């Protein structure tokens, strides 16, 4: 099997593993609810935040924005953790350490899942940004595109990529 086929096989194996593990583990419900809630804030806030950033209550929306980004990190963290017998959240790495899968393959899988997820979040935030701006009669400018890209894609991906890179 050449390197490309090996890499493809590793991604499939990890996909099957996580699908099965998440179906058995309570960790999924908690993380997905957290991710869903905060991602909603991010998408919802992206339009309001842009409109009100320079106003007094812009700070409120910065908090909402940070919470939205946390949703992304939660999504990534779900792939890095497991429950032990006491229900405490622990690192998943020790459970995979002695299996025939490299740390590099695992991190690559997590990053690809992150990109796929965040791309969808950004797409919804961008469409929302354009729609609300048009409905509000304010028209569009470069900020309507740059801001969602930074807030809903680039910064969350960068933060989560760091989390993946530093994980063992």
């Amino acid at each position, binding site marked *: 099997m050449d390197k490309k086929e090996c890499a493809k096989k590793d991604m499939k194996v990890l996909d099957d593993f996580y699908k099965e*593990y998440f179906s058995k583990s309570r960790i999924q419900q908690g993380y997905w609810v957290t991710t869903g809630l905060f991602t909603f804030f991010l998408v919802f806030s992206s339009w309001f935040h842009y409109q009100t950033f320079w106003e007094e209550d812009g700070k409120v929306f910065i908090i909402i924005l940070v919470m939205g980004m946390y949703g992304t990190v939660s999504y990534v963290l779900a792939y890095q953790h*497991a429950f032990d*017998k006491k229900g405490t959240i622990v690192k998943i790495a*020790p*459970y995979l350490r*002695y299996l*025939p899968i*490299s740390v590099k393959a695992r991190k690559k899988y997590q990053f690809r899942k992150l990109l796929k997820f965040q791309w969808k979040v950004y797409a919804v935030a961008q469409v929302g940004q354009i729609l609300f701006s048009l409905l509000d009669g304010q028209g569009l400018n470069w900020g309507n595109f740059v801001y969602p890209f930074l807030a809903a894609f680039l910064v969350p991906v960068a933060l989560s990529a760091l989390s993946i890179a530093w994980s063992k």
Partner: protein
Amino acid sequence: MEEMILEFTNVTGSKGKFRLQDLNFGLPAGYMMGLMGANGAGKSTLMSYIMREDAKYTGSIKICGQDIRENHAYLRNYIGFVSEDNGFFESLSPMDNVNLMAKFYETFDKELFQETMKEMGVSLSTMYYKLSRGEKLKFQMAFAMAHHPKLYLLDEVTVGMDPVFRLDFFKILHKVIETGEASVLMTSHIESEMKQRTDFLGIMDEGKLTWFGESLDYRQEA
């Protein structure tokens, strides 16, 4: 020429306060090797150098003639690891653990696993954390046997075993090596057991292999 399942050549490294110094030995196919030494001698560190891809050392460690650093993850298909340090999901049953982890191996015989567990009298459906220490070790052994490794690594597994189980355990080990296709490397600080039960013996002290040879020679020297 005998096929070498495991070869250490000039391996030197350190991991925290534990250091290995210039280890050289080989384990041919179809044999059992015991590694003895006091606590902190480096036995478990040696095991971790074989199992962990983040181990830093000079020299080479080969499994079936392949340097493990060339493709560490893939070569773990050839290794069956039994240890209290081995991670299985405590809140899942042995069968659930297998359903999750078998996917990673090139070949995994689930039927063989279930038969072996039945022979050893270990439940497939009890949560892993509820199994006794002996049952966990039996499960790990059944798990290892199911993916047909070339090398079984057993780290201090016989400590605290009752005499009946100990006998059964060594019968299982002899069964896996009698085909001549696999070998066993086990660590212990129980000298009498290592002298009597193994074909080769290594003595470690402060990270060095101070003696290596056939167990028969060790018994005669002693």
